[in-house]
């Protein structure tokens, strides 16, 4: 007779899984790499990143996952998300099912209109980037600022440093500003 194991397991392991999702060009992969570097900087946490690859990456919804743990990370891919960032409706529709019960949902309300739940944090990242930070390109960094404020998973200073390290020269001010507005606006939402 088969033994039930899966029902008994509580996945309360020391593990935090983040997925940044949107469409190609929205800088989800850039965001995940920056997040990795910022979190891994101090050496206290292990961190693994993986992303959509090949035809998958060129299609509509594209994703990048970051798994964080203070212990050895066994399985490197996301299993049940603790946080999902959805920058488009398509990404939200595709990946919402992977979010844990009580997981944190963060959406770009400038591009997402239909919510599968009332329990989410919504900010118009794209609009904020365009109108307040000076360019739509930094919407991903606005979102990173929000994730930072909502989770505390990474220090704001480390995140800024990691963003500036990888951002193209001449975009430093814009990126710094994007991160600050994302951070500050999300703090106001925090439950």
């Amino acid at each position, binding site marked *: 007779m088969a033994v039930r194991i*899966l029902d008994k397991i509580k996945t309360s392991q020391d593990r935090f899984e983040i997925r940044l999702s949107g469409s190609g060009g929205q800088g989800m992969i850039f965001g995940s790499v920056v997040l990795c570097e910022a979190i891994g900087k101090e*050496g206290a946490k292990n961190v693994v990143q*993986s992303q959509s690859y090949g035809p998958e990456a060129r299609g509509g919804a594209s994703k990048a996952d970051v798994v964080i743990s203070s212990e050895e990370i066994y399985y*490197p891919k996301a299993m049940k998300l603790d946080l999902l960032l959805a920058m488009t409706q398509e990404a939200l529709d595709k990946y919402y099912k992977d979010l844990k019960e009580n997981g944190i949902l963060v959406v770009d309300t400038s591009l997402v209109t239909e919510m599968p739940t009332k329990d989410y944090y919504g900010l118009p990242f794209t609009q904020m980037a365009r109108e307040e930070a000076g360019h739509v390109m930094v919407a991903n960094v606005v979102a990173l600022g929000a994730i930072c404020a909502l989770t505390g998973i990474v220090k704001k200073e480390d995140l800024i440093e990691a963003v500036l390290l990888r951002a193209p020269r001449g975009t430093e001010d814009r990126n710094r500003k994007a991160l600050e507005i994302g951070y500050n606006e999300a703090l106001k939402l925090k439950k």
Partner: protein
Amino acid sequence: MAKNKRKLLQGNGACVQGAIYAGLRFFAGYPITPSTEIAENCARFLPQVGGRFIQMEDELGSMAAIIGASVTGMKSMTATSGPGYSLMQENIGYAYMTEIPCVVVNVQRGGPSTGLPTKVSQSDTMQARWGTHGDYNAIAVAPSTVADTFTETIRAFNLAERFRTPVTILLDEVIAHMRAIVPIPEEGEYEIVNRVKPTKPPEEYIPYEITENFVSPMPGYGEGYRYHITGLTHNTLGFSTNEPEEIVVKLDKLKNKIDKFQDEIMKLRVNNMDDAEVAFVSYGSVSRAALQAVSLARSVGVKVGTIQLYTIWPFPYDKLREICSRCQKVIVAELNMGQIIHEVRRALPEDIEVLPLQRYDGEILTPTQLLEKLEEVL
């Protein structure tokens, strides 16, 4: 921990950093997904350490070039995926026969033929053992994480130099493209093995001399030693032979130099096996799913363990039998239609049930799938 000793690397990037750490100074290759970043990283980083990168016309040429470079005394490497690995087989056989150390990385994707360029697979496991024709002994290692890839690449170079033989690194798409913060070792932190050079003067040099460990000292071309290299079966002087006694000496040399020193090559990670009634046997990225599954199953009291094969070839028959001696069931999880499972069956006594868990749809096995299998067999 010092900040500058940690770096965010992709699996393919870690392979290159590990290789350079081990002494790689010549890379020849023909880019192919999912190994391309290895060529890119070599093109970028090798010139910074005085090394050479060359993009060849194809994989046949790539393999030939790294053999030639090694003969001059350089540590050399190429990287490819299944389709290119097939094309390299003829020259890999030449390196086995002529005993020229080099490292071949195969970042596996789905096959046969051009198959699934962007999808993960472990279906070249047997090809790494039997890919080229003839009798020979093969060494293949299989990392499972980005950090592993760094250290296993060092080990692959050390084994190639120690045993004067090509060594295959079996990576897969998942590890190759994953990124992680990994520790970068200081110089001297890991032992680096270099091939033994002749101490005799050139006029007394016997190129394929049978030594105590069956490995003959190898000079670099241009260092004053003149000798003959041929893919034809040769005697200790390096000249082709049809003499039955000399043929046996040569083939036994290829076999014995590895068979008799397997302890230096074997590497396994054994986890939770002391009281395990069921064991997962796996390698490469799948072993990470196995470790995850076991840690979850253990949290609810299931007596299950894992054995991860870092060294795939030569296969650790004896060690596996010893570690699994108290198991009732062994599940072999791999991303193919059944390759290493046959070796596991050969290794274990008949009263241990060996069960397959295979996935070949281009996706990685998940911890949940392993746990479902566990539920099924318990």
